[in-house]
């Protein structure tokens, strides 16, 4: 009880509380601007959090994340342009509602659905996270090593369309993580005589480059010179009747559960949760044909599903050190820059901080109800009058100042720039960026634990796979890597067999 009271008093202190409100508003703005996304915003925010109290920094991450996931619905409903990838499913029914003159009603339903999905997800994080962390108390170095490998393998295999490219990206990230002084022996690795490389590649510098630069280049390529006219952004306040709310409640419950489930799985994101929730709502509906033509349940399902993914993706990130998506990886980055190692020990060593972050995820979901009201949404919609071309240098300047203030080194700016340009082309060639970041984060954890495990076992490699828990995680990792390869081979064989089977029949036909 004492811990809960301490957590609540620290979260509701002026610093974190104001950070939650401010960042939720900022998040809705960011989400409402097509081209900007929560990942980019959090990547830009991280360098600023160095000098902040960790609870204030995490409050800002939570606010931007939850706020921008709702903000993405604003252009999705008004213009059929999803503000974030997770808002694609919102366009299906949101835009038809706007065309029928029901934009304000659609936005209100989206706002409530986002808040409900986010709240359910935060409650899942608060209840499941500590239980999972407690279950991992028996873990030793061998288990931690396999957890790191499992995390990278799952994100490498599940993110993107090509498992081999995903794994290649993960290994590349691990290799980047070895640059600098070896933490156990003090030997410099891949430093090429450069003293600035002795401390390794700064995670935040790479993160900002990889996640902020590609959207900047895409915005520049599109070169939106005019923005939107005020005529397109007219909204009138409406009331949603209780009978309609009652009809949406089952959709909210179903979509929340789907979003939470998807969030816990590494590799899947808010867009997957939104699509699955939308399809589930359509299948459960008495009138599935009305979906895609302006059914409020479609908007509710998509928005509730994508927000229910938010906090749930933090469950494996905080309890095991395995991020469920890129934002969770950024949260791990935020913890690392404050000297906190994500994983089971975090719950035991810093219960107030972890608990505080969970409560912040919950409160920022509820704040959306206030900042996402009709009047506020009318204001947020106005940001779309800003020509996209003006955002290009603005984000570039924010990236530069954010990276420079970390170490005060110009060389970091060039690393960021190179990482960003590489990230842009790698994405175009279907190489996912998340495994690279994850490799950088989990690499040192994997190396330290495997070497510690081998020191304890006096070099006996079998120790890594003979303990029951480590053996289970090792088998799960192997299955995760082998499964997509095996299914691909089987599918190819089946496809090769099918024409052979059909060939004789073809010959008999005139």
């Amino acid at each position: 009880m004492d811990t809960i009271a301490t957590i609540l008093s620290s979260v509701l202190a002026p610093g974190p509380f104001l950070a939650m409100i401010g960042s939720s508003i900022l998040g809705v703005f960011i989400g409402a601007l097509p081209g900007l996304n929560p990942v980019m915003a959090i990547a830009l925010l991280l360098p600023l959090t160095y000098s902040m109290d960790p609870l204030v920094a995490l409050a800002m991450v939570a606010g931007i994340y939850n706020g921008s996931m709702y903000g993405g619905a604003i252009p999705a409903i008004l213009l059929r342009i999803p503000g974030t990838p997770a808002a694609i499913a919102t366009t299906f029914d949101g835009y038809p509602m706007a065309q029928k003159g029901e934009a304000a009603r659609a936005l209100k339903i989206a706002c409530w659905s986002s808040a409900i999905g986010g709240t359910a997800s935060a409650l899942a994080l608060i209840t499941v996270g500590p239980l999972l962390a407690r279950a991992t108390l028996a873990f030793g170095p061998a288990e931690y090593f396999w957890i790191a490998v499992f995390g990278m393998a799952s994100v490498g295999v599940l993110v993107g369309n090509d498992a081999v490219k995903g794994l290649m990206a993960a290994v590349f990230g691990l290799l980047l993580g070895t640059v600098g002084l070896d933490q156990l022996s003090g030997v410099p690795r891949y430093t090429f005589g450069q003293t600035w490389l002795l401390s390794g590649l700064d995670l935040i510098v790479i993160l900002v480059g990889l996640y902020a630069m590609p959207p900047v280049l895409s915005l520049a390529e599109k070169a939106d010179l005019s923005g939107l006219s005020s005529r397109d952004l007219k909204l009138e306040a409406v009331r949603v009747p209780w009978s309609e709310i009652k009809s949406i409640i089952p959709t909210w419950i179903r979509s929340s559960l789907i979003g939470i489930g998807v969030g816990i799985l590494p590799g899947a994101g808010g867009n997957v949760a939104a699509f699955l929730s939308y399809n589930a709502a359509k299948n459960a509906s008495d009138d599935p044909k009305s979906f895609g033509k302006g059914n409020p349940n479609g908007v509710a399902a998509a928005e509730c599903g994508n927000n229910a993914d938010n906090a749930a993706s933090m469950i494996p990130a905080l309890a095991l050190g395995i991020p469920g998506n890129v934002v969770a990886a950024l949260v791990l980055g935020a913890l690392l820059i404050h000297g906190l190692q994500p994983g089971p020990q975090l719950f035991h060593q810093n219960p107030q901080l972890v608990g505080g972050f969970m409560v912040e995820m919950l409160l920022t979901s509820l704040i959306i109800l206030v900042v996402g009201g009709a009047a506020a949404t009318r204001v947020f919609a106005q940001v779309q009058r800003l020509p996209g071309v003006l955002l290009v240098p603005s984000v570039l300047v924010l990236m530069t100042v954010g990276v420079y203030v970390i170490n005060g080194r110009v060389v970091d700016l060039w690393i960021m720039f190179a990482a960003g340009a590489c990230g842009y082309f790698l994405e175009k060639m279907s190489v996912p960026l998340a495994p690279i970041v994850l490799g950088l984060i989990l690499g040192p954890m994997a190396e330290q634990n495997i070497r510690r495990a081998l020191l304890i076992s006096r070099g006996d490699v079998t120790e890594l796979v003979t303990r029951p828990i480590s053996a289970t995680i090792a088998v799960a990792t192997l299955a995760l890597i082998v499964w997509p390869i095996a299914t691909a081979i089987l599918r190819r064989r089946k496809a090769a067999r099918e024409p052979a089977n059909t060939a004789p029949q073809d010959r008999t036909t005139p």
Partner: protein
Amino acid sequence: MTAQWQDMLLGAAFAVTGAAAAFKAAAYPGASGGYPMVLGLMLAGLGALVSLKAVKAGETAERPLTENTPRMVLTLVCGALYLALVPVLGFYTASALVVLALPVVLGFRRPVYLGAVTIVFIGIVWSVFSLLLEKPLPAEIWMRF
């Protein structure tokens, strides 16, 4: 360039990087070299696999690397120039220049609007980073004399 060629070159680049990393790691003493060497070899193997898959896939469709190459290149050049100018002109001077110049390069032709946005934006950045957070940034050229 086709997706096949892109993947062949991509795989080859990662394979070479991995092999070079493994070769370099071989010179590190004891356990310091073992871990990066294994990673280097894995990267080389996976890179080779990507190339091999591309070769086996046969001729594929074009996969554009850019949506608009001139604008992308111009943005990269302006970005690089900006980073080069930051230590020379100072952070705020270089930033004001890029906020003014890059939209013009990309085709924006509303000078009053652009000027107002530049002043407001640089003002916000200055208020947050210099006034509120007191972060040391590269000094302005006109403050050095």
